[in-house]
């Protein structure tokens, strides 16, 4: 993804400099994760020892978090809401992206610019109205109450990235299928969709991460374990008293929700990088 290195040769000191920079950057990127992992493994008595590495390992915080009713419920809500919102958003975006790239109709540019405007939209501006409307419509503290805003706000990202992947498809294949007697729908389903599937999948990961990461909507539009998602559960996690912050449990919960997503992102990193920068430079 990054072309050929410009400076393939270079002095020993130059190479050492780059290696050192690489090392520093990698350590810096991993620092807070390493710290949360360290805290989550410290026995309760050691939490305030201010050592970077735990002196003893204990799994007590993981046990506490997994037996507490709040966290497993939040995990289920986050996964369910995130997956449903992702599925719908990506499906709608695929249809729109196909039309924008493949069909000639007035207004297709307006759809792209409109999507961009939505991407710049400050979510706090609609929190009040949604809070009021959702209570009226019975959507407050429900899965649907979060799924709807997540679909809307992730559509721009999904449309732009999927459209970028669509642009790289050899469309002669579709024409060939049409010549052979396939309908437009058959050509789309049997020829185009398999080709664009990897790009759609990458977009799906980006959309899922958006929903998974959201704190504002989840904090404002939920109130119980019925629909409270992971970021809110972690932020509002309380110990036995208001002043006793369960640092160890919060750290353990954080590690548990971080590792799977990091693994997912790293497994598909090439496609994710392509998705993140799609359209940004090629225009």
């Amino acid at each position: 993804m990054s072309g050929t290195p410009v400076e393939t040769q270079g002095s020993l000191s130059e190479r050492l400099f780059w290696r050192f920079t690489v090392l520093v950057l990698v350590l810096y990127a991993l620092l807070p994760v390493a710290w949360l992992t360290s805290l989550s493994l410290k026995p309760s008595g050691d939490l305030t020892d201010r050592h970077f590495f735990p002196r003893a390992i204990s799994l007590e915080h993981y046990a506490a978090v997994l037996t507490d009713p709040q966290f497993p419920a939040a995990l289920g809500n986050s996964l369910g809401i995130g997956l449903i919102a992702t599925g719908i958003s990506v499906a709608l975006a695929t249809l729109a992206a196909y039309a924008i790239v493949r069909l000639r109709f007035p207004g297709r540019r307006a759809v792209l610019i409109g999507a961009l405007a939505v991407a710049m939209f400050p979510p706090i501006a609609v929190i009040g109205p949604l809070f009021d409307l959702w209570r009226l419509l019975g959507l407050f503290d429900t899965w649907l109450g979060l799924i709807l805003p997540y679909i809307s706000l992730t559509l721009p990202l999904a449309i732009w990235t999927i459209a970028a992947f669509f642009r790289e498809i050899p469309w002669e294949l579709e024409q060939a299928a049409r010549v052979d007697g396939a309908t437009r729908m058959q050509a789309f389903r049997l020829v185009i969709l398999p080709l664009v599937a990897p790009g759609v999948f990458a977009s799906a990961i980006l959309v899922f991460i958006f929903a998974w990461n959201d704190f504002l909507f989840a904090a404002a539009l939920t109130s119980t374990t019925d629909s409270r998602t992971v970021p809110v559960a972690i932020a509002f996690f309380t110990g036995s008293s208001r002043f006793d912050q369960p640092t160890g449990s919060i750290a353990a919960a954080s590690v548990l929700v971080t590792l799977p997503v990091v693994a997912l992102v790293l497994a598909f990193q090439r496609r994710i990088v392509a998705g993140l920068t799609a359209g940004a430079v090629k225009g």
Partner: protein
Amino acid sequence: MSRFDRDERRLGWLLCAPAVLAMLLVTAYPIGYAVWLSLHRYDLRFPDRQSFVGLANYASVLTSEVWWRSVFNTLLVTAGSVAVELLLGFVLALVMHRALVGRIAVRTASLVPYAIITVVAALGWRFAFDPTTGFVNALLGIDQAWLSERWSAFFVIVATEIWKTTPFVALLLLAGLTLVPPDLIRAARVDGATAWQRLRYITLPLMKPAILVALLFRTLDAFRIFDTIYVQTHGAQDTESVSILAYQALIARLNLGLGSAVSVLIFIGTLLIALFYVRLFGSGVLGRAGGRR
């Protein structure tokens, strides 16, 4: 117009309609409702005392010191984080572009902050700087209650934002860097241009579009900062951002009228920032801005 053209048109609109409607559902309609709410006295704690008050809510927001302090705080965090992110992101992009050993490692590591929930990242840094559970004070050999004082709290907030979003900036800039033809750089080197001259007169001008896109999106993103401040200080120590202010009015105090006035002002602020960039750099910046986050 042929029948085929008409069919194609119809199909195009049909395929776009669901996505367009879904986007309007949670943006256009609610923002209209927010404007309506902002013109009313509407406090959920006193639901019967609802009445039209004109621009009174705007007047009380715009004359309150709390609002202007939160505007100042938001701009401070925005300017501080975006400036550092751009510099650091550029270094990161250069490393990913040039380093022979470890470029894959850097790309992999730089995706880690992106994959982490903002709330979790904010907590990680809060725990790190915490005087009782943290390691930062022990490491530096000082005794500082970072989040209990205004400027040190800002430092932690901005540091968190930088850590979380620099990778995104770096990836955008890297995409721009790959558009710089290596032959051009080699030719300049042969002609005796120093590293600084090559950067200043070749690389940077060619990267301008990528830099603008990164700048636009990060400015808008930083302007709506919420999660990090909420988790780290909850707006205490005079670190309230405009989004925190609106949230407190709307959700904590249930004053939908006043809170909506703040929301509408934030919306206008976002528009002004977008217009500022379009005026400054031409509307090409919009055409180039694509996938984000």
